[in-house]
C-alpha cells in the first residue's frame, strides 16, 4: 500500500496558496512534487498529459486535495480525516469492542508498563500492566493524564525551521548538510542533550553516534533529578549500582524526606508493597493485608507534607538542612561511630532519634531507611551505611547494576555543557526531548546560551521555550504513536508499541538519531527490533525470534531483563572526612519540587492534570509558596490564613496574600498557601508553572519558581526572605475546610485499639468503636454499621451468609431485637422485590489506611468518564466536576483525632505546632446509597436505582433542577452549570470514551461505579452463557470477582479501593466489608451506602516522644 497521504508534505512553507481551478492545481509545482512523493514508482506517468484513466482517478484525488494545498499546514484538513468504514474488517477489530495493547510509559527515564485501551484505532484510556513489576496494575496520575497529551490541540504539529513551518524532508536535508561538516571533524562540538535515558535501543543508537562522531558528547539532564542518589552510591560503594527497596519485606520504614510512594522510580510499585503491610485485617477469611501484629511501622521525617508523611505512623517535620543532621545523629545512635558529625537539631528531633534507632534495630534486618532523591550525596551514602548496619542489605534493600547509563552528577554535566556553549565550543546541539530553556536552573541562562550555538535542533512535543530558540524543531511523536522501549526501576525492560499512526507525523528520538546515523530508511520498529534481536541471539537463544517478539509485545514486558543483582560490598565511609559539620542556614529555606500534577511543566497544557487537585494542598491551576502556619505568622512574613470569599468560598475560591520571594538577587511574586504540618521556616515551591511559550490551557497559569532556582542550590536553597505585598491572589482550592469539625468522616485507630477489640468483636460491635461515628448517640453506636450493605448482620438477615462465614462470625450475644428497629425502616428489604437484595449487589470498600492521597484515582476517573475540564475561574466558583475526590483533613491534638470540635482560631493556634498535625485522606466517590436521598427528590426520575443496586444517573432524562445535589449529604454530584464538555475542538472529540455519555449543559452527573464496565462485563457473561459457571441465585452466568474493575480501583497504586459483588461470597469487597473496621460515612442518615470505608489503622511506637 502506498504511504499515507500527507498534506504537510505538499504544503508550501509560506502558507496559503489560492487555487483557481483544477487545471492550475494539477499544473502547479506543488502538485507535481506531491505526486512524485505520493507514488514514486509512477511519478513519470503522472507528469504526462492526462489520460482518461488517470483523469478519473485524479478527479477524486484532487478534489480531496484541492483544499489541502491552500490550508494552513499546521492543521490537518478535513478531507484527510474522512472516516471510511472498513471494506475488509481486520480480524481483531469488532466495532464497539475495545482492544487492549501493552506498551510502555516513560517518565524521568524510568518506564512503567501500561495497557492502553483502543477503540477502532483510537487510544482511549491507560491502565497499569499487571505483568510489569513497576506497575502491578497501578498507575500514577501522570500516566492517566498522558493520554490527553496525544489529543492536545496545542501540540506541536509540524517541523519548524527558524520559526516557520517546514517539513521532515527539509529537516533531513538540513541535518545532512550539518552532518557532512561534523563528520570531517569527528563530531567536534556535537552535543546531544537528553533527559535520563534507559531505553536500550536509544542507548544503542547513542553509542553508535559516539562511534561515528567520537568527539561528540551525550549529556543527560533531568529538571529535578536524583543526582544525590547517584553520587551517593558512588561515594558508598564506588561502583555503578542502584538500590531497589522491598517494602513488602520491611517491618520498619524510615522515609527520610522521601516521598517514595508518589515520586521517583518505582513509586507505584513501592506504594503497593508498602500498603500490603499496612492493610490491617482481622476477619479470619481475609484475603489480603496483614494481622495487627505484622503491620509495618512507617516513620517520616520531611519538610513538605507528602503522601508518605500522611500515611506515616510518626511524622517529624524538619528543615532540609536539619534532615542531614538527623541522618547523621541516627547513624551515630545506631553505632556508626566514624560517621560525619551531626549539626544542631531541634529538641523534638533529638528525642526522636533514640527510640527510632532502637525500633529500627529491633526489626532485625527488616527495617529500611529511604533517603529522598534530592537529598545530598552524603545523606544517601550515610543511609546506605545505616541500612548496612541494620542488616537490611539483601532483605529490604537489594542492589542491581545501574539501570541508567553514565550515572553521575547530571547537574554538573549540564553546567559543563552550558560552559561549552558559552565558550562557543558547541557546533551543534541536539535536544532530544525536554525543555531545558525552561527547566534548567536560572543562573545557567540556558536559553541565552542556546542562541549562541551555531546549529540547534530540538525534538519536543510542544513548540516550547526551547523549541522557539532552536533553528530546527521536530514535533515529537507521543509515546502511543512511536516504537521504543524502556527500563523499569528494577531494570526490567518493556516494549513501547504505538497504538496509532503519528497524528501529526511526529517523530521519535530514534528517528532523529537514525537520520544522524544515516539510517533514515530504517523505521523505528526495525531499530527496536534489531536491538532486541541482539538480546534474543545472546540471551534467549531458543525458538523463533518472531514468536518471542510477539509474545513480548503481547505481555508488554521482556521477561528476564531485570538488572543483574549486584553485591554492594561494604559501605565506605572515606568521604566522611570531607563532609562538613552542618548547621541550619539563616533565613528561610526554599525547597524546590516537581509539581505533583504538572511535573516539570510538561503537563502544563494538560487540562486534566492542571485541574486535578494537588495532594494535600487541594490547589488546582496554580502553584504557591507553601509554608507552615508558624512561618506564616512569623515576623518577617505575617501572612494570614486564606480568606474564603464570595462564590465558591471554601469549596473553590481562596483569597491569599501575594508575597515576594527573594533568594539572593533573584525574586519572584507568588501567592502563599498555609499548609498545616509543613516544617517551620521552610518554603516549598513547585516547579512547572509560569510557562511562557505554551498552549491555551497552560497560558498564564502560576508563577515560575524556576526563576529563583540556581544550579548550586537546585533542590534546597537557604537564606530566602519573604516580603508580603499588598496584592491578593485568588487560588482555586477545592477543599479549604481542612478540619473534621468533630464529625470525624475519616476515622482511624491504632493497632492497640484493634488488639483490644479483637477478642470481643464477634459479640460486641462496640469493640471497634474507633470506626464508629462519634456524634451518634451511644444506643446507635455499632448498630449503624450493622445496617450497612454487606455487613454480617445484614447478610444474615437476607440469608446471604455462607455457612463458613456464619461459623466465623456467629452472633452469640448482644442480638437485641429492639436494636433492629432501624432495619425495619428499610424500604427495599422485604418489599415487593426481595430478589433485588439477593441478586448482584455492586459495592465498594476503601481502605483509608492504604490511601496516600495521590489522586491517581481522580485522574483515572476523569479519563474514563469524559469528565470535562472547567478551568480555573469555574473552579473558583465551586464548580469542579470530579466524580471522585480525595478529601484531606488535618487534625490537631486538641481535636482528639477529629472527634472533638474546636473553633477556628484555637485550631489555627494548634496548627502552629506542625509536628503534632496529622493528615487523613478520604477518597469520596458516589456512595451508591441503597436508600439514596437524591433519588426521591428528582421530579423526573432521572436518577434511579438499578436492580443490582447502582444509583444510576439517566443523563437524557435530567432536566437540571439540582435538587438531588442539595439532598446528597456527601455532595458528590456535579452539575454542568455551563457547557463544559468541549464539543468544538476536533481533536478533543477523539479522547472521549464512547461508552460514556458526553454531558451537555444543564445536566447533573456523578459516579456510577463505571457502570459501562459493569454492563459490558454482563454482556460478556451472557455471551458466554454456555461456557460459564451459573450463579446459584438466579441461574445467570457468573461474573467472577475482579472481572469488573472500576477506573479508580484500577489506577490506585496502593490497592486501597476494592469493588465487586457484595453477594458473591468469594468477592474481596465482601471480605473487606466483613471487617469490624468497616463503617459507612454518614450512615446515621440511614442512607445505607454501598461504598464503605475501612477505618485507618496506625501503628504508633509507644516509645516515641509524640504521637504525631
Amino acid at each position: 500500500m502506498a504511504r499515507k497521504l500527507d498534506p504537510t508534505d505538499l504544503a508550501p512553507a509560506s502558507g496559503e496558496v489560492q487555487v483557481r481551478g483544477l487545471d492550475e492545481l494539477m499544473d502547479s509545482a506543488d502538485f507535481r512534487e506531491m505526486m512524485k512523493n505520493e507514488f514514486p514508482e509512477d511519478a513519470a506517468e503522472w507528469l504526462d498529459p492526462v489520460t482518461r484513466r488517470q483523469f478519473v482517478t485524479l478527479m477524486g484525488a484532487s478534489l480531496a486535495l484541492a483544499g489541502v494545498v491552500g490550508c494552513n499546514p499546521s492543521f490537518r484538513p478535513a478531507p484527510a480525516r474522512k472516516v471510511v468504514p472498513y471494506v475488509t474488517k481486520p480480524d481483531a477489530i469488532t466495532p464497539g469492542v475495545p482492544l487492549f495493547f501493552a506498551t510502555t510509559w516513560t517518565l524521568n527515564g524510568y518506564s512503567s508498563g501500561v495497557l492502553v485501551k483502543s477503540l477502532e484505532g483510537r487510544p482511549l484510556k491507560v491502565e497499569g500492566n499487571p505483568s510489569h513489576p513497576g506497575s502491578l496494575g497501578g498507575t500514577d496520575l501522570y500516566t492517566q493524564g498522558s493520554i490527553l497529551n496525544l489529543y492536545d490541540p496545542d501540540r506541536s504539529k509540524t517541523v519548524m525551521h527558524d520559526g516557520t513551518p517546514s517539513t521532515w524532508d527539509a529537516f533531513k536535508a538540513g541535518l545532512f548538510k550539518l552532518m557532512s561538516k561534523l563528520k570531517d571533524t569527528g563530531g567536534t562540538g556535537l552535543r546531544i542533550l537528553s533527559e535520563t535515558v534507559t531505553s536500550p535501543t536509544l542507548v544503542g543508537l547513542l553509542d553508535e553516534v559516539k562511534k561515528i562522531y567520537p568527539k561528540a558528547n551525550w549529556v543527560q539532564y533531568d529538571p529535578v533529578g536524583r543526582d544525590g542518589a547517584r553520587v551517593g552510591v558512588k561515594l558508598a560503594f564506588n561502583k555503578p549500582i542502584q538500590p531497589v527497596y522491598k517494602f513488602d519485606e520491611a517491618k520498619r520504614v524510615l522515609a527520610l524526606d522521601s516521598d517514595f510512594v508518589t515520586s521517583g522510580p518505582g513509586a507505584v510499585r513501592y506504594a503497593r508493597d508498602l500498603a500490603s503491610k499496612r492493610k490491617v485485617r482481622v476477619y479470619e477469611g481475609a484475603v489480603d493485608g496483614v494481622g495487627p501484629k505484622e503491620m509495618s511501622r512507617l516513620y517520616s521525617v520531611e519538610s513538605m507534607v507528602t503522601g508518605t508523611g500522611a500515611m506515616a505512623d510518626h511524622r517529624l517535620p524538619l528543615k532540609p538542612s536539619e534532615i542531614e543532621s538527623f541522618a547523621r545523629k541516627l547513624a551515630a545512635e545506631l553505632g556508626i561511630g566514624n560517621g560525619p558529625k551531626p549539626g544542631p537539631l531541634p529538641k523534638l528531633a533529638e528525642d526522636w532519634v533514640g527510640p527510632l534507632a532502637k525500633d529500627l534495630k529491633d526489626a532485625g534486618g527488616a527495617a529500611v531507611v529511604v533517603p529522598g532523591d534530592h537529598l545530598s550525596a552524603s545523606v544517601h551514602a550515610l543511609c546506605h551505611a545505616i541500612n548496612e548496619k541494620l542488616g537490611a542489605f539483601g532483605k529490604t534493600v537489594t542492589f542491581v547494576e545501574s539501570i541508567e547509563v553514565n550515572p553521575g552528577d547530571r547537574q554538573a554535566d549540564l553546567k559543563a555543557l552550558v560552559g561549552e556553549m558559552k565558550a562557543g565550543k558547541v557546533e551543534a546541539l541536539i535536544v532530544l526531548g525536554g525543555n531545558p530553556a525552561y527547566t534548567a536552573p536560572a543562573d545557567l541562562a540556558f536559553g541565552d546560551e542556546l542562541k549562541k550555538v551555531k546549529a540547534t535542533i530540538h525534538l519536543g512535543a510542544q513548540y516550547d521555550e526551547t523549541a522557539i530558540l532552536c533553528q530546527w524543531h521536530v514535533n515529537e511523536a507521543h509515546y502511543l504513536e512511536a516504537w521504543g522501549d524502556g527500563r523499569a526501576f528494577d531494570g526490567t525492560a518493556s516494549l513501547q508499541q504505538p497504538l496509532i499512526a503519528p497524528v501529526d507525523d511526529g517523530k521519535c528520538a530514534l528517528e532523529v538519531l537514525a537520520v544522524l546515523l544515516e539510517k533514515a530508511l530504517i523505521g523505528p520498529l526495525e531499530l527496536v527490533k534489531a536491538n532486541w534481536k541482539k538480546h534474543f541471539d545472546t540471551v534467549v537463544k531458543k525458538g523463533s525470534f518472531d514468536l518471542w517478539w510477539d509474545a513480548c509485545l503481547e505481555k508488554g514486558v521482556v521477561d528476564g531483563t531485570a538488572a543483574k543483582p549486584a553485591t554492594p560490598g561494604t559501605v565506605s565511609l572515606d568521604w566522611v572526612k570531607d563532609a562538613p559539620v552542618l548547621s541550619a542556614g539563616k533565613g528561610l529555606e526554599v525547597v524546590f519540587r516537581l509539581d505533583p500534577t504538572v511535573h516539570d511543566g510538561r503537563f502544563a497544557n494538560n487540562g486534566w492534570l492542571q485541574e486535578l487537585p494537588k495532594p494535600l494542598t487541594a490547589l488546582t491551576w496554580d502553584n504557591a509558596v507553601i509554608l507552615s502556619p508558624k512561618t506564616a505568622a512569623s515576623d518577617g512574613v505575617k501572612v494570614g490564613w486564606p480568606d474564603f470569599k464570595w462564590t465558591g468560598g471554601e469549596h473553590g475560591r481562596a483569597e491569599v496574600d501575594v508575597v515576594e520571594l527573594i533568594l539572593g538577587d533573584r525574586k519572584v511574586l507568588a501567592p502563599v498557601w498555609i499548609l498545616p504540618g509543613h516544617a517551620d521556616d521552610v518554603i516549598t515551591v513547585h516547579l512547572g508553572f509560569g510557562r511562557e511559550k505554551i498552549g491555551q490551557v497552560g497560558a498564564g497559569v502560576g508563577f515560575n519558581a524556576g526563576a529563583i532556582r540556581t544550579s548550586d542550590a537546585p533542590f534546597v536553597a537557604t537564606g530566602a526572605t519573604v516580603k508580603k505585598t499588598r496584592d491578593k491572589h485568588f487560588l482555586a482550592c477545592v477543599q479549604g475546610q481542612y478540619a473534621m469539625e468533630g464529625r470525624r468522616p475519616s476515622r482511624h485507630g491504632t493497632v492497640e485499639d484493634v488488639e483490644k477489640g479483637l477478642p470481643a468483636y464477634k459479640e460486641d460491635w462496640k469493640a471497634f468503636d474507633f470506626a464508629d461515628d462519634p456524634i451518634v448517640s451511644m444506643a446507635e453506636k455499632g448498630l449503624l454499621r450493622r445496617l450497612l450493605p454487606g455487613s454480617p448482620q445484614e447478610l444474615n438477615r437476607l440469608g446471604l451468609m455462607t455457612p463458613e462465614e456464619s461459623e466465623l462470625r456467629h452472633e452469640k450475644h448482644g442480638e437485641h431485637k429492639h436494636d433492629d428497629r432501624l432495619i425495619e425502616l428499610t424500604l427495599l428489604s422485604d418489599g415487593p422485590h426481595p430478589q433485588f437484595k439477593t441478586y448482584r449487589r455492586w459495592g465498594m470498600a476503601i481502605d483509608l489506611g492504604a490511601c496516600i492521597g495521590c489522586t491517581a484515582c481522580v485522574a483515572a476517573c476523569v479519563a474514563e468518564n469524559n469528565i470535562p475540564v472547567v478551568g480555573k475561574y469555574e473552579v473558583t466558583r465551586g464548580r469542579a466536576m470530579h466524580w471522585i475526590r480525595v478529601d484531606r483533613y488535618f487534625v490537631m491534638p486538641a481535636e482528639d483525632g477529629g472527634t472533638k470540635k474546636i473553633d477556628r482560631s484555637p485550631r489555627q493556634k494548634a496548627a502552629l505546632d506542625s509536628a503534632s498535625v496529622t493528615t487523613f485522606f478520604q477518597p469520596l466517590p458516589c456512595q451508591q446509597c441503597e436508600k439514596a436521598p437524591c433519588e426521591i427528590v428528582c421530579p423526573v426520575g432521572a436518577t434511579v436505582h438499578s436492580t443490582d443496586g447502582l444509583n444510576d444517573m439517566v443523563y437524557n432524562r435530567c432536566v437540571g433542577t439540582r435538587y438531588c445535589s442539595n439532598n446528597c449529604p456527601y455532595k458528590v454530584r456535579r452539575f454542568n452549570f455551563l457547557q463544559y464538555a468541549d464539543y468544538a475542538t476536533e481533536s478533543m472529540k477523539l479522547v472521549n470514551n464512547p461508552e460514556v455519555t458526553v454531558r451537555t449543559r444543564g445536566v447533573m452527573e456523578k459516579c456510577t461505579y463505571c457502570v459501562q464496565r459493569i454492563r459490558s462485563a454482563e454482556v460478556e457473561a451472557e455471551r458466554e452463557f454456555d461456557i460459564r459457571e451459573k450463579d446459584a441465585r438466579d441461574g445467570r452466568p457468573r461474573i467472577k470477582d475482579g472481572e469488573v474493575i472500576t477506573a479508580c480501583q484500577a489506577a490506585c497504586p496502593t490497592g486501597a479501593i476494592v469493588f465487586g459483588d457484595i453477594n458473591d461470597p468469594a468477592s474481596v469487597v465482601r471480605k473487606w466489608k466483613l471487617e469490624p473496621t468497616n463503617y459507612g460515612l454518614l450512615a446515621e442518615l440511614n442512607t445505607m451506602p454501598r461504598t464503605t470505608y475501612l477505618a485507618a489503622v496506625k501503628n504508633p511506637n509507644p516509645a516515641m516522644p509524640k504521637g504525631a
Partner: protein
Amino acid sequence: MAMLVEDPPEKTGIYTDAEKNIGGRHDLVSIGEKIGHICLGVNPTPKAWYFWAMLGFTGTAGLGIAVGYLFYLGVGIWGINQPVAWGFAIVNFVWWIGIGHAGTLISAILLLVHQKWRTSLNRFAEAMTIFAVMCAGLFPLIHMGRVWLFYWLFPFPNNMGVWPQFRSPLAWDVFAVSTYFTVSLVFWYLGLVPDFAALRDMAKSRVQQWVYGFFALGWRGSAIHWRRYEKLYLLLAGLGTPLVFSVHTIVSFDFAVAIVPLWHATIFPPFFVAGAVFAGFAMVIWLAIPLRISFGLKDLITIKHLENCAKVMLGTGLLVSFGYFLEVWMAWYGRSEIEWGTTLQRMFGPYAWTYWTLILTNTIIPQLLWFKYFRTNVTWLFLISLSVHIGMWFERYVIIVTLSRDQNPSSWGRYTPTFWDLLTFAGTLGFFTFLFALFARFIPVISITEMRELLPVSAGGRDGHSVMENAK
C-alpha cells in the same frame, strides 16, 4: 367627575356604613363612578402611574435581557455552585409565592368568614396574587438546567411511558402552583365579569365598549346570571381556601422533605404558611397605600383596612418568630451535632448577617404594630411592610445558604449572587410593577359589584356580601 367627598373620612368622620368600611357619603352611582372612571379614563391618569408603569416596563425589559442571556449560556451565569445548587432563583420563587398568598386568603377565606372589610382589598389583592405567582412560577422554570424540557414535569402521555417521579416535592410543586394559579385566575376573573359589564355599560368610547363587552362575556345582570355567578363564586371560594394552605405547605416540602440539616423539619409547613400570609399582607399594604393616594380611593380603602392588614401581619409575624425560635430549640434539644452545628453556622457563620437581618426585620421591627399609632400611620405602615419584605426575603436566603455548610465538612462552600441573579430578581419586581400598573389603570382595582353590595340597604346595597347572604 363626581367626587362627592373631597376630604378623607378619617378627617371628616363621615362613614357610609356602620362598620366604617366605606368612608364619605356613597351610593350605588358614586361607587361605580369612583372605581369605573379610573378604568374608563374619565379621571386623568395620575402622573405617578406613568412613573411606575415606566419603571415596571424597564424592569421587564431587564428581565427579558437576563432571561435571554440565561437561555444563551445556561444557569452557570448565576452564582450557584456545589454545594449551594439552589440560589436566588429558589429564594425568589418562595418569596414571590409567599406574597401571592394574601390575595386568595383575603378573597376566599375572609369571604367565608364574613369579613366585610375584605371587599375593598380582594380585587387588587387577587391581582397581586396572580402577578406574584406569575413571577414566582418563572423562577423554577428558568432555574432548570434544561428549561426546554420543563414539560417533563407534567404527567403527559408519551411513547416512552415515562412519568414524573411522584415522590419528589418538586413534582408536587408543579401541581400545587399550577392549581393555585388556575383557581386564583378563574376566581379573579369571575369576580370581574359583572364589573366588566358595568364598565361596558358606562363606557362612552366604542373601543372601551367593545373590549369590556368582550370580557364581560355577555353579562346581562339577569337573575339567573346572578344566581349562577354567586354559586360559582362560593364554590371557588371553597376551593381556594385549602389551596391557600396547600401551596405554601407543598413549597415548604421542597425543604422539609430534604435531609439537609435544618431543612429536614416538620415545622416548615405551618411556618411557611404563616410567613406567606405575613409577606402577603405586607404587600397588600404596599399596594393599597399608593392606590388610595394616586387614584383617590381613600373612601374605599380606609385606614381601617390598613389597620386590619397590620393586625394580621402582627399575628402572623409572631407565628413566624415562633418558628425561628422552634428551629433553634429543636436543633439544640435534638442533640444532633450536625443540626446544632448548622444552627451555630447560621447564627455565627459566614452568613450570620443575613440571619440577624432576618430576626431584626421579621421579628423585632414588626413588634411596633402592637401600637395603634404605627398601625394607623401610613408612612410607618409602609416602612414596616418594607421591613417585612426584606425579612421574608432573607428568611428564604438564610434557608438556601444553609446548603453551604451541611453534613460533610469537606464540601463546605459559599454562595453569592452574580449581577445576573440580581438583574433577574429586579426584573421580576419590574414585571410585577408593570403588570400591576396596567391592572390599576384598566381593570377595576376594587370590585364595583361587591362595594355596591356593601352599601347599607338604605343606600341601595345589601350591607354585606350577596354571595354569603344568599348562601345562607
